[in-house]
């Protein structure tokens, strides 16, 4: 049956901000869906609060609502747009949960909206653990022995029934949040109560733990004619016990016989049919007992997922795109396979390579987190790699992570593990951590048997044997020595995935020397094609990966080619914003007549979609791998400044004439402290006083000169890595010591004369401002946006809320800021984007730093102003002038009036209960949302709502601020009282407030150490009992004091909005006041920006 004609408009719900467990894979899937449904002629309405996404570009939908993802807001959108259908299966768990809520609230019925792609019943059956278990029983499939509990009493009964060890999984949660193991009754008490709290319906599933079993996933699609296909099988290298998002996984399954695989395939189809997913993609997870092949269904997701993004990239089969078509009535056989163009989508991809996915964690940013992996997902991103064999694929994947590792050891990063003795290594290898695989390799190298390691760690012996092939090859290489390497031995090492860096380490040679010798021996990579069919049919799509074989499949091309370097795996500080920039560059450079060549290794992204660029290379972003592509493609230029720090770091190593845009020389000028200071002095642009230090005493001397507080940070790092503010000499000494000893920092920089510590006077209570602008080769300059931060300087710009247009800056200040920005761009000879950070204190503007590259704020500015900064910058980099772009209509006037946009950061603290939630100079947010409305206050309230901290309209505010914040906090307190809130405060704050005319309704007891007897209830008890609707708590001095920390933790756990700066409290108070006086309204980006979708790009 072809497309449905009875529906005309479709609402797609996106997944909102990037959070752990829900990342850019849903931008990828949502973007595909928007494109497909537009191509099919439907009116597409999109709701997504995340401005950094490509899908929220106004040209991807007819009406784009960058509004909070909340039932009330969605109801308004539905009321306004009256869509015929709602497609909730491409926006992750967020969209699915909202769809369920919309059904339950009767909204879909009321407005006659049909849910397509899933049904309420199917969502419930898949999501509700009890219903799911019953359903599995009905179709004769085993799930782990389990019981449902809604209270601790029920939970304890279930524990007695099932027996330890036990795994607790909350119902209706995302990425395994609140899931945990218990080996003892005490641990059970803890994880069960945490699970009950995490579940929005207070329901947990208590299961017998099957830790150590093998884990598999099948990506399944079904159409409404009941045709079912498996797109991809995935096997976890880590056994059961580690969340699949935190496991190294490989596709296809490696250690299942066909008999077992087909049994699993049959089961997966039975599951999708029973759950009732009528059309679309689902993912079904299985556990297999390695001792006897017993199979158990773990869970299914009735929607596209992170795994389906992986499966799409791994096979070339675009699951989201096909799912969108199936949802509007097509059957699989009616949809062509894009890659072969001759065969239909109703088939099962066959692949002739091995795909490995490796997660990337951010534990170094979250002091206090244990770093031990478990059933709750903790990784913030992932890299995917393709090789002809598993060892090749694995080593490529490890170097794709960009964490200073270049493969499975055989690099300087292995030293830490080499130092440990066997017993310690084995003990550590049994605990799932990000480093486990490296420890296992050391054990293999020391001759420990595969049987023993398999028994202790649960890794399948086949995988261990594959690791040991790498280990044995390493020993062979060392024995052979650099001088005796033959063509054959180079080739064999490369076929096992050894990077030139690893070979250099083993031979004690520089990477370049290795590369030269290898190339001289005639050993260079060949590029193969991802074609869905293992070469059975000709592929039309140039989607390549490197390997060392006979035949290269890269086709020649007459058009000039431009290589765009992507941003690699998501991490804190470098995420979807940069993918957005790269994708925009690809689109616009294709329009400009270039053949675009994308290199990236992040399977979640739009940039790694095979139809985003003319050519896609799924490769690690290292010098070696990038040079291989450059040599294969012979491009006219390489774009390095749109993918964040990753490609920028490579810029110096690439042939200089190939680097388009701002020169590496200018990049260094902005980065090198001494040169930068000289430049600012020359331009007479004030900077906060400061200096650089390698030794502690130098640092002390600087602070004696400039005064405290001071901002201390290492050079050449991203996302405010290891930045701190010190208020006295002791703290300074501590910070310096920490920087010198910081293990992981050694990999990223370390303390040397080349990479000293930067120390600046910290400007307290200054307003921080970000400016994005573009300069062309002729010196013409255009302002993109001036963003005023809500939090004061000192909170990392990525973690701070910020607003366009700036609500508090005077016209005069803005003029100064523009002037400084323009002059800096000129002096740095920028060709492309420049981001400058300023601090404004008492009307004086200080420059903090300048980065001649795309910044994190580029997509937000574009959504707020309508100026496509990334596209304009890409064109400027290849030589267009701003005037030309204005004439072509690509560079438009910014829309600066009629609305205010507020960006708010989304933080991962709920995942890491042991980490303090206070904001500081080190960035810790994973994603962002945008609130957009007629005024700053309303936009701010929307941004809080979108970020998950919906501000209350009435109730009690717990107010506890540091002494230095009391004066500024007073205004917020006054406003809150005016709004009718009751104020609760600890005695110190209460006295201050009362003395200054603010009525304090409730004086709260001081939080006491355990064992002490306190008078009355303390703040934690009040928060836990639900009597507090908003917490305003600012940290007292440097270093979180235990009481503040416990208050913030309680708020995080209870889901009570918690503001940790006075500035945010003021903004919130203003916003709540305006909110109170106006009705919630929703407006599409197209209306805000007065743009309509052009007909050319569907």
């Amino acid at each position: 049956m072809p497309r449905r004609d009875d529906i005309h408009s479709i609402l797609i719900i996106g997944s909102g901000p990037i959070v752990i467990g829900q990342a850019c894979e849903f931008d990828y899937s949502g973007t595909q869906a928007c494109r497909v449904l537009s191509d099919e002629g439907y009116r597409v309405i999109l709701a997504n609060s995340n401005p950094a996404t490509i899908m929220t570009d106004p040209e991807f939908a007819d009406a784009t609502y960058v509004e909070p993802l909340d039932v009330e807001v969605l109801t308004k959108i539905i009321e306004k747009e009256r869509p015929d259908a709602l497609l909730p299966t491409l926006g992750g768990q967020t969209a699915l949960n909202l769809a369920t809520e919309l059904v339950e609230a009767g909204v879909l019925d009321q407005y006659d909206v049909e849910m397509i792609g899933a049904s309420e019943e199917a969502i419930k059956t898949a999501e509700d653990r009890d219903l799911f278990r019953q359903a599995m029983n009905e179709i004769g499939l085993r799930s782990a022995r389990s019981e449902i509990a809604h209270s601790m009493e029920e939970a304890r009964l279930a524990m007695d029934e099932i027996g330890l060890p036990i795994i607790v999984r909350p119902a209706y949660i995302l990425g395994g949040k609140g899931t945990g193991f218990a080996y003892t009754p005490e641990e059970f008490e803890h994880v069960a109560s945490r699970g009950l709290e995490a579940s929005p319906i207070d329901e947990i599933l208590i299961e017998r733990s099957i830790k150590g079993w093998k884990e598999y996933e099948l990506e399944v699609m079904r159409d409404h004619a009941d045709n079912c296909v498996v797109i991809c099988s995935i096997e976890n290298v880590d056994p059961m016990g580690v969340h699949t998002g935190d496991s190294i996984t490989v596709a296809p399954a490696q250690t299942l016989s066909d008999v077992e695989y087909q049994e699993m395939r049959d089961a997966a189809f039975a599951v999708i049919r029973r759950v009732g997913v009528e059309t679309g993609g689902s993912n079904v997870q299985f556990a297999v007992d390695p001792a006897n092949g017993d199979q158990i269904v773990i869970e299914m997701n009735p929607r596209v997922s992170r795994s389906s993004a992986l499966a799409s990239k791994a096979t070339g089969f675009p699951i989201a795109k096909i799912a969108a078509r199936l949802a509007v009535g097509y059957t699989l056989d009616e949809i062509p396979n894009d890659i072969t163009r001759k065969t239909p989508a109703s088939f099962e991809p066959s692949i002739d390579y091995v795909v490995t996915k490796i997660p990337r964690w951010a534990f170094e940013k979250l002091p206090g987190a244990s770093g031990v992996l478990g059933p709750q997902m903790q990784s913030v991103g992932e890299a995917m790699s393709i090789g002809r064999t598993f060892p090749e694929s694995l080593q490529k994947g490890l170097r794709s992570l960009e964490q200073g590792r270049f493969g499975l050891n055989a690099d300087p990063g292995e030293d830490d593990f080499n130092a440990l003795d066997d017993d310690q290594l084995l003990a550590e290898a049994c605990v799932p951590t990000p480093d486990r695989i490296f420890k296992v390799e050391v054990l293999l190298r020391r001759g420990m048997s595969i049987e023993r390691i398999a028994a202790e760690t649960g890794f399948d012996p086949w995988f261990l044997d594959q690791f040991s092939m790498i280990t044995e090859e390493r020993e062979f290489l060392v024995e052979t020595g650099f001088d005796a390497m033959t063509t054959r031995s180079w080739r064999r090492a490369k076929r096992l995935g050894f990077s030139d860096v690893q070979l250099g380490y083993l031979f004690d040679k520089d990477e370049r020397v290795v590369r030269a010798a290898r190339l001289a021996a005639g050993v260079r990579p060949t590029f193969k094609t991802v074609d869905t069919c293992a070469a059975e049919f000709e592929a039309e799509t140039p989607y390549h990966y490197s390997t060392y074989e006979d035949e290269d499949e890269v086709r020649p091309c007459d058009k000039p080619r431009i290589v765009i370097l992507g941003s690699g795996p998501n991490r804190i500080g470098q995420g979807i914003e940069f993918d957005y920039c790269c994708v925009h560059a690809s689109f616009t450079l294709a329009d400009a007549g270039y053949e675009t060549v994308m290199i990236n290794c992040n399977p979640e992204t739009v940039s790694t979609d095979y139809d985003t660029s003319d050519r896609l290379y799924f490769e690690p972003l290292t010098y070696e791998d990038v040079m291989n592509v450059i040599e294969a493609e012979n491009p006219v230029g390489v774009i390095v400044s749109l993918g964040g720090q990753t490609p920028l770091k490579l810029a110096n190593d690439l042939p200089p004439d190939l680097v388009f845009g701002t020169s590496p020389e200018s990049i260094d000028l902005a980065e090198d402290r001494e040169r930068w200071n000289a430049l600012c002095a020359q331009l007479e642009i004030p900077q906060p006083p400061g200096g650089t230090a390698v030794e502690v005493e130098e640092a002390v001397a600087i602070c004696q000169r400039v005064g405290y507080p001071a901002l201390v940070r290492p050079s050449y790092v991203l996302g405010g890595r290891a930045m701190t503010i010190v208020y006295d000499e002791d703290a300074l000494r501590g910070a310096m010591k920490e920087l010198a000893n910081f293990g992981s920092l050694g990999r990223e920089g370390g303390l040397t004369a080349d990479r000293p510590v930067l120390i600046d006077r910290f400007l307290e209570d200054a307003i921080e401002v970000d400016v994005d602008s573009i300069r062309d080769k002729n010196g013409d300059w255009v302002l993109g946006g001036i963003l005023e931060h809500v939090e004061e300087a000192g909170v990392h710009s990525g973690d701070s809320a910020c607003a366009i247009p700036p609500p508090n800056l005077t016209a005069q200040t803005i003029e100064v800021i523009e002037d400084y920005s323009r002059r800096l761009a000129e002096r740095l000879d920028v060709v492309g984007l420049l981001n400058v950070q300023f601090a404004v204190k008492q009307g004086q503007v200080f420059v903090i730093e300048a980065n001649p590259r795309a910044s994190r704020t580029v997509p937000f500015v574009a959504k707020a102003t309508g100026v496509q900064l990334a596209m304009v910058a890409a064109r400027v980099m290849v030589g267009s002038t701003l005037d030309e772009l204005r004439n072509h209509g690509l560079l438009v006037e910014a829309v600066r009036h009629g609305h205010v946009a507020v960006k708010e950061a989304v933080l991962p603290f709920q995942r890491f209960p042991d980490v303090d939630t206070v904001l500081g100079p080190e960035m810790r947010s994973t994603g962002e949302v945008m609130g957009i409305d007629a005024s700053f206050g309303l936009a701010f309230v929307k941004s809080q709502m979108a970020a998950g901290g919906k501000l209350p309209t009435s109730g009690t505010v717990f107010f506890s601020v540091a002494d230095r914040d009391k004066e500024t906090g007073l205004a917020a307190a006054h406003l809150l009282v005016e709004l009718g809130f009751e104020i609760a405060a600890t005695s110190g704050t209460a006295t201050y407030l009362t003395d200054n005319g603010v009525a304090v309704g409730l004086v709260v007891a001081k939080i006491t150490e355990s064992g002490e007897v306190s008078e009355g209830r303390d703040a934690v008890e009040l928060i836990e009992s639900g009597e507090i609707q908003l917490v305003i708590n600012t940290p007292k001095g440097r270093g979180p004091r235990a009481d503040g920390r416990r208050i913030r933790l309680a708020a995080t756990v209870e889901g009570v909005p918690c503001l940790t700066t006075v500035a945010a409290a003021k903004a919130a108070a203003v916003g709540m006041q305006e909110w109170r006086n106006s009705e919630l309204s929703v407006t599409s980006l197209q209306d805000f920006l007065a743009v309509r979708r052009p007909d050319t790009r569907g």
Partner: protein
Amino acid sequence: MSQPKTIVEAHLVLSDGEVFEGEAFGAPADVAGGEVVFNTVLSGYQEVITDPSYAGQVITFTYPHIGNYGTSALDKEARRPFCRGVILRDLARRRSSWRSDEDLDSFLRRHDVPGIAGLDTRRLTRHLRDSGAMPGAFGTADQATLLAAAKAESGTDGVDLVSTVTTPERYVVGHGPRKVVAYDLGVKATMLRHLGEIATVTVVPANTPASEVLAMNPDGVFLSNGPGDPTEAGPIVNEIPKLLGEVPVFGICLGHQVLALALGGSTTKMKFGHHGGNVPVQDARTGKVEITSQNHNFAVVPGSVPGVTETHRCLNDGALEGMVLEDVPAFSVQYHPEAGPGPHDSRYLFDEFAELMDSVRPVAARGE
């Protein structure tokens, strides 16, 4: 363990002169050869290697890692492999599966099947795809010897391979309530296992006269899969007309092709055939798509068979995949509904065969 393992260099040379460098495994061979084909399954290598339909052929696995889960007595499709050799990218050194009783290398040695590994199997596959399946020779001999051997290989056209794989004597398998006689043209064990669930199956040699079959008073006759060119499948083509109308007939793969020939249809050799576990086949009557397991180099020419309804088509290339006779109870499919290896989507066809037999001769009417 300094040198990972002793490598025995070997080459594969195709009849058109294309050379591939690799290393020998399995049974030692200076020169081994046959028609080189490729198979795209991701799992199920043992079932493929032991499928008698590969008699005369050398199998290239497109998936690089082969042997990961070893071999198992449970997964044998015939008493021994009949293929001439195995080509793959990477042979597992260590097998890992509770089901396994032997590793693939030992299994192949034991059955005297040589192999060549380490070569660029994707290049080989693309070459076969573009130039068609062709004879080749591989082994430790020099390239000139291998080229000569490749050129001397006859391929599978016009060669009677059925007689090399069929059972020498009849035997009985299964315990189902019906009586089926199965012509063994190269039958797979999984096929007999499925037939055995619906019938008690007497497996007979390929040259068994129809009269002998009918004398057994079966409820149905099954025509199995088998190797090579259907026009060289021996006397079976002449026997089928004597069975049609007398007893329900079900044919699979070569059985489908010889049924078509017996009805006056024609067959053709395909460029490189269908060998894999992911082939979409659509039932023209219902529109349903089945993902099928396939292994054939020859195909029935669409429209060439009189008196049949063409029921199934391959969605990749339009190949005829199934037919039903209009006037007599008989049907056949080109693909492998038994699926060993492969998806189970089409196993219902065995039930349809049972229903067909019951419609002709109700269970009550059977003289047990």
